[in-house]
């Protein structure tokens, strides 16, 4: 029988559907609520007040606030082995079969073995972890593991989440956030001129949408503002029992109106966190929206008029009002008379000193706000407190609002905004509903005008639809002792009490941002929604400053908890990161390649045979290139064609080396410098015709080089006739490398003469290979005789099949990035990301000779080459390193020293940037940058890494075929 089980449910009223009962469980107990309930309202109806334990002291906690403001009632939803933690019970819509559990309690929320922490709270001041558990230092990891188990919020899910979260993008001329009276009025006014208006609100109720009116996103909360786009999280109802399937919207807007309302503050008194002590507005919402009156005897404590509404409504719902404790001596005469007519006792000039009861409030002790008058204990089972209202400006702050402290409202209000942002209604400090509507309409019209529209709205007649102004307000902390106690909580979610702030200040944390980090005030999921103003007021009082001088800590996104899976969206598993495949991806796969992502490219690293380890495959492939012939996919190299009358003039300004003498059909290894004289890209330039060149920048720079060329061609030398076309994706390219390369290519069939005299190293020909149209170049990144063959991308698999067939009798071997890396390392060839990181000069890598000698022709970076830093004698120079015979390969990233371990007295003089085990030398080799390293050739140095050291001998960076006989063969 639902009626009897829902002890505190009223028989009438509310926006719930009593005809649609919903069953759910909390901590294993079955309950029943109604369609339209939140988890919080349904638990209240069922007399469940303790919803969790606080994160530091393990105090029992229940719902204190409503909606997004709730700091305490965080729950975990379960469905089989899936779970979603840290959801606010006030924001979880009740659904059939919902399974929720409380957090941070063991073994149960009613009998928490760690509740003893509360008794120790005197000895757990802010920062106590670091003060107490810092000795001996090496045990901190152990302490940390235990502490993390004792303190905290929900547990992260143990199993991968289903990919049911989606991400959407939207554009709006005007975005209105908040669907209260102000938001609705602003959206209506904003749309009246025809602008595209989107209204985002937490409402679950369908609002009538008229043609041309605003579009509405329901169950949605703006969670962050990033420049001119808003992140909005939309709860997706009924998708599954965990409330998963939410959608993260990125909404680009021209104008933003924030009608985000105001959030009520608690009052400060001892044990103000006991279950059954709620904000006055939260009790009013329970009554009016959910028809729940969760008590028989209510005490209302307030410093403003607004909470009287809660007292009157509760009385009408059958609740006894024990007293209205009004902190003010003055206050509204009309309201006091209204209370008197209802037979409600008002005690003015008094405040609550403390609450009694542990898992539920039993009574409050009331005393005068000033002096030492007698105190009185008032029995009750429910307390409604109101410490005034904070305009909800977290999102406005993110959107660029500047705040000031308004003493009349005892709150921070907007003092300045970017011109495209407006704040309307209660968020702008207007608490009268009628005034808020008129304010919002005016701001909606202004947004429409700012969007270039002519709004045509008849304003709502000037009526006052007030809840009762709350402008007459008394300070919430009048009694010194009640404002500074260990049990008077300011930040409920983070267990920060008034005393913690006093201690932080005593210890020298003056800045509000430092106080936040030391005490955890305003951190976590809550970001200080109910706590910031109290904290700032208290810090101001302690330092004899105004709250405005203290300032507020900056609230961070997200505004409400958003599952991390929603931020991930579809970017999971194979979709985590996009990658590019070459035209040969399937060809590699069919030959058993292992892949790794190199930059954006998915590239084969090796083709291990059955039973072969990866290092074994690497060595086999490298040996095949040195002794026979290998095939390697070099498609990721950039390919940029340059046409036009001024091509040569342009390239000679771009490259540091002289291209004037480059003949048609020849290629040259070339260097682009930055304006600072550092190496930007090393690549090959080939001349295909009179005014026709082909650039091959390195794979890592293939996307940046065209942009760099466009920048100079378009913005600096528009008078040059030069056309830049990127054809990187149109051509696939393979390297055929090894002493038998020429023989295999001949067997595959080509109309290009391959003889040394006709086709020398560093030249390019166009012709047919295996009857496919191809560009052939004599180029080598291995040090062996070699060709690189480019064909239209779609023909690449045919080319490779033909080459494999032609080389079958010669031991042709496909090789991957690992073998390629050891082959180039043996030759001292440079790689972006290893030797080159944008800081090296040509001289650093031993290529200073490449710079053209004729100084009449200027090029990018030329002038910088004579800057003092670039000609320092102690610059780090590229050298080779040989490990001691029998030693393993030198550690990548190892620090180079002349002897002693690098430290303050012995500065390190270099770093290992590439390392491997040479196949040709059967020896560990490495490349390193070492201060004045070329002068150290033949000397022994020490390499330090991971607490070990190794001896190495400095050598030339070229380890193999120094005479270049093989490459030119």
């Amino acid at each position: 029988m639902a009626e009897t089980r829902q002890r505190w449910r009223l028989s009438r009223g509310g926006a719930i559907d009593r005809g649609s009962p919903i069953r759910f469980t909390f901590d294993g107990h079955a309950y029943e609520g109604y369609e339209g309930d939140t988890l919080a309202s349904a638990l209240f109806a069922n007399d469940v007040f303790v919803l969790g334990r606080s994160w530091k002291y393990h105090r029992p906690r229940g719902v204190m606030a409503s909606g997004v403001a709730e700091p305490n009632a965080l729950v975990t939803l379960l469905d089989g082995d899936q779970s979603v933690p840290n959801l606010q019970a006030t924001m979880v819509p009740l659904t059939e079969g919902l399974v929720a559990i409380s957090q941070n309690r063991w073994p149960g929320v009613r009998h928490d073995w760690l509740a003893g922490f509360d008794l120790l709270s005197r000895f757990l001041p802010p920062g106590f972890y670091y003060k107490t558990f810092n000795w001996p230092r090496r045990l901190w990891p152990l302490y940390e593991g235990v502490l993390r188990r004792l303190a905290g919020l929900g547990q992260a899910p143990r199993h991968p989440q289903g990919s049911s979260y989606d991400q959407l993008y939207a554009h709006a001329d005007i975005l209105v956030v908040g669907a209260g009276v102000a938001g609705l009025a602003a959206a209506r006014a904003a749309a009246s001129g025809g602008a595209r208006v989107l209204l985002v609100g937490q409402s679950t109720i369908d609002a009538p949408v008229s043609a041309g009116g605003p579009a509405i996103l329901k169950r949605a909360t703006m969670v962050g503002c990033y420049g001119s786009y808003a992140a909005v999280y939309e709860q997706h109802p009924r998708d599954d029992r965990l409330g998963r399937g939410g959608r993260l919207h990125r909404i680009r807007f021209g104008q933003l109106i924030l009608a985000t309302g105001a959030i009520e503050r608690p009052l400060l008194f001892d044990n103000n966190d006991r279950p059954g002590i709620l904000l006055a507005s939260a009790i009013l919402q329970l009554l009016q929206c959910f028809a729940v009156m969760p008590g028989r005897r209510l005490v209302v404590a307030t410093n403003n008029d607004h909470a009287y509404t809660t007292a009157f409504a509760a009385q009408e719902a059958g609740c006894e009002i024990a007293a209205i404790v009004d902190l003010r001596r003055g206050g509204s005469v009309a309201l006091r008379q209204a209370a008197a007519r209802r037979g409600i006792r008002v005690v003015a000039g008094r405040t609550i000193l403390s609450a009694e009861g542990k898992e539920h409030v039993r009574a409050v002790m009331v005393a005068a706000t000033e002096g030492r008058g007698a105190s009185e204990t008032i029995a009750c089972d429910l307390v409604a407190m109101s410490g005034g209202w904070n305009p909800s400006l977290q999102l406005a702050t993110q959107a660029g609002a500047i705040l000031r402290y308004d003493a009349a409202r005892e709150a921070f209000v907007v003092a300045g905004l970017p011109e495209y942002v407006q704040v309307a209604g209660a968020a702008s400090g207007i608490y009268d509903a009628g005034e808020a509507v008129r304010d919002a309409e005016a701001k909606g019209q202004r947004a429409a005008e700012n969007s270039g529209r002519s709004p045509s709205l008849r304003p709502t007649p000037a009526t006052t639809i007030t809840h009762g102004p709350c402008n007459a307000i008394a300070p919430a902390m009048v009694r010194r002792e009640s404002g500074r106690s260990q049990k008077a909580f300011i930040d409920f979610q983070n267990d920060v009490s008034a005393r913690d702030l006093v201690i932080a200040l005593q210890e020298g944390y003056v800045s509000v941002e430092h106080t936040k980090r030391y005490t955890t005030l305003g951190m976590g999921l809550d970001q200080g929604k109910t706590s910031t103003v109290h904290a700032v007021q208290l810090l101001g009082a302690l330092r004899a400053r105004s709250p405005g001088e203290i300032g507020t800590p900056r609230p961070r996104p997200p505004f409400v908890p958003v599952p991390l899976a929603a931020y991930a969206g579809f970017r999971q598993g194979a979709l985590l990161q996009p990658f590019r495949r070459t035209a040969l991806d399937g060809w590699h796969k069919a030959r058993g390649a292992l892949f790794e992502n190199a930059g954006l490219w998915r590239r084969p690293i090796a083709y291990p045979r059955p039973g072969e380890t990866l290092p074994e495959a690497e060595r086999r492939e490298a040996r095949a290139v040195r002794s026979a012939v290998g095939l390697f996919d070099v498609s990721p190299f950039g390919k940029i064609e340059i046409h036009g009358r001024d091509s040569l003039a342009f390239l000679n300004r771009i490259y540091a080396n002289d291209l004037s003498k480059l003949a048609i059909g020849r290629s040259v290894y070339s260097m682009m410098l930055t304006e600072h004289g550092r190496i930007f890209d090393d690549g090959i330039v080939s001349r295909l015709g009179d005014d026709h060149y082909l650039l091959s920048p390195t794979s890592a720079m293939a996307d940046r080089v065209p942009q760099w060329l466009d920048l100079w061609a378009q913005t600096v030398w528009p008078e040059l006739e030069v056309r830049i076309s990127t054809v990187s994706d149109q051509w696939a390219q393979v390297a055929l490398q090894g002493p038998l390369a020429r023989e295999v290519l001949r067997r595959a069939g080509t109309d290009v003469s391959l003889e040394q005299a006709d086709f020398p190293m560093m030249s390019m020909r166009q012709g047919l290979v295996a009857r496919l149209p191809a560009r052939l170049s004599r180029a080598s990144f291995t040090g062996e005789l070699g060709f690189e063959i480019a064909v239209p991308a779609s023909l690449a698999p045919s080319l490779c099949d033909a080459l494999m067939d032609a080389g079958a009798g010669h031991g042709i071997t496909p090789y991957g990035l690992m073998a390629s890396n050891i082959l180039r390392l043996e030759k001292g060839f440079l790689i972006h990301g290893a030797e080159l990181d944008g800081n090296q000069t040509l001289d650093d890598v031993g290529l200073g000779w490449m710079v053209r000698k004729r100084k009449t022709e200027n090029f990018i970076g030329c002038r910088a080459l004579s800057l003092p830093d670039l000609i320092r004698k102690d610059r780090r120079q590229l050298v080779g390193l040989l490990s001691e015979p029998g030693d393993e390969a030198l550690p990548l990233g190892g620090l180079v020293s002349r002897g002693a371990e690098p430290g303050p007295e012995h500065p390190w003089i270099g770093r290992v940037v590439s390392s491997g085990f040479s196949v040709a030398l059967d020896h560990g080799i490495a490349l390193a940058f070492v201060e004045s390293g070329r002068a150290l050739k033949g000397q022994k140095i020490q390499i330090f890494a991971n607490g070990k050291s190794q001896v190495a001998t400095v050598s030339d960076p070229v380890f193999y075929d120094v005479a270049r006989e093989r490459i030119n063969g």
Partner: protein
Amino acid sequence: MQSIYCPYCDAVFDEEDMTFGSAKRRRLLAADSTREDVVDYLFMDANVRGPVEELWYHSFGCRRWFLVTRDTRSNLVLSSRSLEGEGQDG
């Protein structure tokens, strides 16, 4: 997230289609330019607080560089124009 008008495409695109270049207009330093000139050009950026004209590149589009005026205080894009001077507000 900005929406930026490309004067060459005559349409508005999301910032993701664009690449920010710099507020500095490039020039080739003369081989005989003074140390002061070199240091000033290479290292001394104006870092303007307020409206500043910047080079942006329509990288996933027409691949043209153009000029965007952006207010560094509000991060608002105020106008775009082509290198030849044609453009429009916002």
